[in-house]
């Protein structure tokens, strides 16, 4: 039964897209993936707007001081097993705006990121490839969750040890 559940995790990844400081070039490419020409629903991917239902978090845009708190909050609200995909030059490393004063840099400065999609406004095919890579990681994390090892518990134990 555990194998079946883990197999179904890869077959029905629900996706949540959060735009933290992006020029919305990557956002319209993420939305373009849902439209008839690229149609990610054939992989079972639906864009749910609710972190409680989501498995994959798509982060676009340079994280700035105000929305890094929101990004962390959304990441914590998502149930395990979850993966994060950073989209575009801004999402991965801050891109052209790396030196601007309000920019923190890529999404990996705030939350652990599993897949990086490069390109300034990456094509929808590139985003689909990025999600496929993230699905591989989702399956591994799923196995860990099945054995009862939760990332959240590990983090709290690590914090207790550090203190």
């Amino acid at each position, binding site marked *: 039964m555990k194998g079946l559940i883990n197999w179904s995790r890869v077959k029905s990844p629900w996706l*949540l897209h*959060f*735009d*933290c*400081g*992006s*020029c*919305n*070039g*990557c*956002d*319209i*490419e993420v*939305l*373009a993936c849902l*439209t*008839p*020409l690229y149609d990610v629903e054939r992989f079972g991917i639906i*864009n*749910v*707007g*609710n*972190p409680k239902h989501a498995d994959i978090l798509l982060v676009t*845009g*340079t994280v*700035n001081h*105000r*929305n890094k708190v*929101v990004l962390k909050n*959304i990441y914590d609200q998502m149930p395990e097993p979850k993966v994060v995909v950073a989209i575009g030059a801004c999402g991965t490393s801050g*891109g*052209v*705006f790396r*030196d*601007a*004063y*309000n*920019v923190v840099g890529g999404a990996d400065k705030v939350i652990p990121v599993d897949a990086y999609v490069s390109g*300034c*406004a990456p*094509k929808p095919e590139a985003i689909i490839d990025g999600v496929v890579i993230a699905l591989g990681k989702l399956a591994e994390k799923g196995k860990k969750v099945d054995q009862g090892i939760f990332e959240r518990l590990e983090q709290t134990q690590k914090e207790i040890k550090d203190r």
Partner: protein
Amino acid sequence: MARTVLPFGPQHPVLPEPLHLTLTVDDEIVKEAIPKLGYVHRGLEKLAEIRDHTQMIQIVERVCGICSFLHALCYCQGIEALMKAEVPPRAKYLRVVWAELHRIHSHLLWLGLFADAFGFESLFMQFWRIRERIMDVQEATAGNRVIISTNVVGGVKKDIDKEMEKWILETLVKVEKEVNQLKTTILDDYTVKQRTVGIGVISKEKAYELGAAGPTLRASGIAQDMRQTGYAAYPELDFTPVVETDGDSYARTVCRFNEILQAIDLVRQAFAKMPEGELAFKPKGLPSGEVVSRVEQPRGEVLYYIKANGKKFLDRLRIRTPTFANIPPLLEMLPGCDLADVPILILTIDPCISCTER
């Protein structure tokens, strides 16, 4: 029902971009809406002081992904005015072609998101399916689907040859046919009119006083369109602004819909009258002095204030985008509307938050 405070938060399925509204809702009527911006503020105007003024074109293009060409056009026209550079005519026509293509794809994108806001998913899919044709044209001509970086100070980098031109005109014929098929659905469908007519009304005086811009202004009866001032090749093309009178969400939909057809016609005119000639004029020296340059974006007029003092780096770059001007009318529309109409009101001014906060 008790008075609930609804955080219409930065992350919301209806909002394509992070905008926070604290709505106090009483029996699903919005009593008060307090905005909170700053989720997309990158502070890129400060980069003008550490980046060369030719590199700034790449940064200015990435202020907003949907109207990137118009940002670059406005910036280049400002710098060209400072350096007294004369743009060759062919470049002017090419700039009009790309600007109008960008307007078509931006308005189709908006119509899709607007239909999605009131729960009409199949219309969202249809509009975005047509829009993919324009994205292919943009990728073939400029190399990138979204950020068309073909603008250079003094002209244009890439050319459109005859064979490409023929293919673009064929695609536009297909796009026009498909858009007209959907015309009755978006404009005359009973359920769509039920959700858009009479929602978010702004009177002519109120729109003018609140400083609205673009279709939000033109839908309330004021015929002001920056293309009338005749930058690039617009004086040679016959162009009259699309105006509606009753100023509600329905009027803005009609206004943007007709602008798509008008933009297709403008591209055809531009191709018909396009002269041969070289693409860019190599400007000498460095810009100095102050200039205010304005251009018509899909969402309205954008204003660039550039202050340069003869050095490689600009002294000050100030960008005021149309959505920045449309936020006060939005805040004026929101109190008193139904909760179910909040996403429609937010999308009716065609918000581009990354434009507003730069």
